[in-house]
């Protein structure tokens, strides 16, 4: 499963440009289930189980990741970029990205350190002050390789480090995609719908359309969520902790989750003897926000991997949380109909 996660994370797919991820997912599920691509680019899959339940279950994860879009080319051949999704501007300066159809390497720069005045030195540059250098000598050379609207994605390696830890870009939410691929590979008790959706990072847009299409009764959203378990945070400000199991939320900024499913998750974890935690702050949000309000309403559950440094080129999770999330989801599935 770690190899699957690595493959998925290293694919480039910012919101609105998820093609590479979609192609890979299709290559993996072809012949194993029915699927179609919806008008926005989401993959909607249906896998037969041994039984057909009287309620429809949807499991959803998003394919897109945060990144940048080229909006201007200067006379000197520098590219100006706009963030796509919620990127902290302080994790952008001095980073390497891949940009455009040719996947050119570029670096994101700003005014030279030595030329900053007193106040400027303690300021983090904001997006309008940064630009992408691809080594072009001038605008004409840049235009030979780059078009306005091209995507730029953080360059990142899949790093296994420390004791059972993993760091890479795009773990949010290729981890969810990896778990769904694993479920599609396995024998299922009940018929299940899976949506690999687009455009989560710019406002839960792919899931809005996909949930309408599937029309589920129950939905489980698989995500990665902010873990702030670093020494500078304490108590509830840690939100959740890496290594302490899957995160099941009672509420975030987009959803108040179904109580029955919330309890089922914790009961199931207890029976399995695996750790399970909730978020100690009402923060963040995910596709459940769109799905639970779809049509006449959907009972929704959010199961997330605790992830440090979310929305940066260096998301960090633990392998044990990943494995325990897979176990929890698999054990929960047959029981959601009873809630």
């Amino acid at each position, binding site marked *: 499963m770690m190899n699957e996660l690595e493959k998925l994370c290293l694919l480039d797919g910012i919101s609105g440009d998820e093609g590479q991820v979609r192609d890979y997912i299709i290559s993996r599920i072809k012949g194993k289930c029915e699927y179609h691509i919806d008008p926005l680019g989401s993959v909607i899959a249906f896998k037969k189980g041994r039984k057909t339940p009287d309620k429809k279950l949807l499991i959803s994860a998003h394919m897109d990741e945060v990144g940048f879009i080229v909006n201007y080319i200067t006379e000197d051949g520098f590219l100006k970029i706009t963030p796509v999704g919620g990127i902290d501007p302080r994790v952008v300066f001095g980073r390497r990205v891949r940009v455009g159809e040719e996947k050119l*390497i570029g670096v994101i720069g700003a005014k*030279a*350190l030595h030329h900053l005045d007193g106040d400027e030195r303690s300021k983090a540059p904001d997006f309008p002050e940064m630009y992408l250098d691809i*080594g072009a000598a001038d605008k004409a050379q840049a235009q030979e390789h780059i078009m306005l609207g091209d995507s730029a994605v953080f360059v990142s390696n899949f790093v296994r480090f*420390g*004791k059972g830890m993993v760091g890479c870009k795009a773990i949010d939410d290729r981890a969810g995609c990896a778990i769904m691929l694993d479920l599609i590979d396995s024998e299922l008790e009940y018929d299940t719908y899976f949506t690999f959706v687009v455009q989560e990072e710019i406002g839960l847009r792919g899931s809005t359309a996909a949930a309408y299409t599937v029309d589920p009764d129950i939905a489980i959203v698989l995500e990665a969520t902010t873990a702030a378990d670093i020494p500078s945070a304490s108590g509830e400000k840690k939100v959740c902790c890496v290594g302490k199991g899957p995160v099941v939320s009672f509420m975030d900024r987009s959803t108040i989750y179904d109580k029955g499913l919330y309890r089922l998750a914790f009961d199931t974890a207890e029976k399995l003897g695996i750790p399970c935690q909730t978020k100690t702050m009402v923060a963040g949000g995910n596709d459940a926000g769109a799905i639970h309000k779809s049509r006449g309403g959907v009972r929704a559950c959010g199961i997330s991997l605790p992830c440090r440094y979310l929305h940066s080129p260096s998301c960090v999770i*633990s392998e044990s949380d990943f494995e325990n999330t897979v176990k929890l989801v698999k054990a929960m599935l047959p029981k959601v109909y009873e809630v």
Partner: protein
Amino acid sequence: MSKTDTFELLKKLTAPMGVSGAEGSAAQAAASELDKFGSTEYDAATGNLFFRRKGWQEGRPVVMLDAHIDEIGFIVNYITDDGFLKVSSCGGIDRRMLLAQRVRIYGTKGEGRVLDGFTASVPPHLAKDYSKAAQVEEVLIDTGMSGDEVREYVCLGDRVLVENECTRLLGSRVTSKALDDRAGCAALIMAVAELDGEELGCNVAVTLTSQEEVGERGAKIAAFIVEPDAAIEVDVSFANTPDSDDEECVKMGSGVMIGISPSLSRKLSNDMRTLAQELSIPYTMEVMGRTTGTNADMISISKSGCPTVTLSIPERFMHTPAEVIDTDDIENTAKLIAEYLRRYTS
């Protein structure tokens, strides 16, 4: 040297860790490039690498070519019980790039082991102000281990580095960590390589010196030992960006920057300019109103004083892991140095 050779040389030189005070591996990589052209000696106590070109004859004037081998980085000063490292900076790190970076931790405990880690970023609910750059003292390095586990590999004083391997951009431009000043080291090695086998009127010493980023310390010691009659310092300087002032920067790819400053030898500056003009080597003049902020400041006042000139390679995003340089500028710098040595007469 062909373009490919320059890139490959840069790749070899930039790869090793050489944070100030821990330059050994970087010096070794440079020594293996210089060995064929003369004799090298690494002084582990000071971190300086010395090279004497073949054909060294006692009594002849000595021209010293210097560049610094060290790079900016971090040094571990504390390990928390939950396994995060706190660090101080070695050199003037650009604070704007500190968060959510992949780092390598050069653990020296026991047999020594390089560990991967990440600098923590501060999640949105804790960040008070997105517009503030982090302080080095606030940086927490996530090792993915507990404090006790980390202490099996890492000691206080070990170095930590943000690494980016040397990679081509468009045309002749490249990006890497440590181009400041391995690009300068590359120019000196290329100049020596070009002159291989030629008779010269002077002895050529190359020094690749330590601890420039913390105050030009290695060069002070090296100049004392070499006792040069003239010195050429090669370092990086500022290339244009969209927000730069034309007075402070030159265009990337515009050739070697010849320094003029009250602290430098005006004769050497003029000689370099005349030579570049005569040979049509692309160049610009870099005028500084005071000292240069490079090793030249130390070398020029070593012992009884030594006429010194700076040659600079234009660079973007200095003191970040994303420095950018044009290899044409390195080649032109090397060419000018080689021609200067060919014509040297005391």
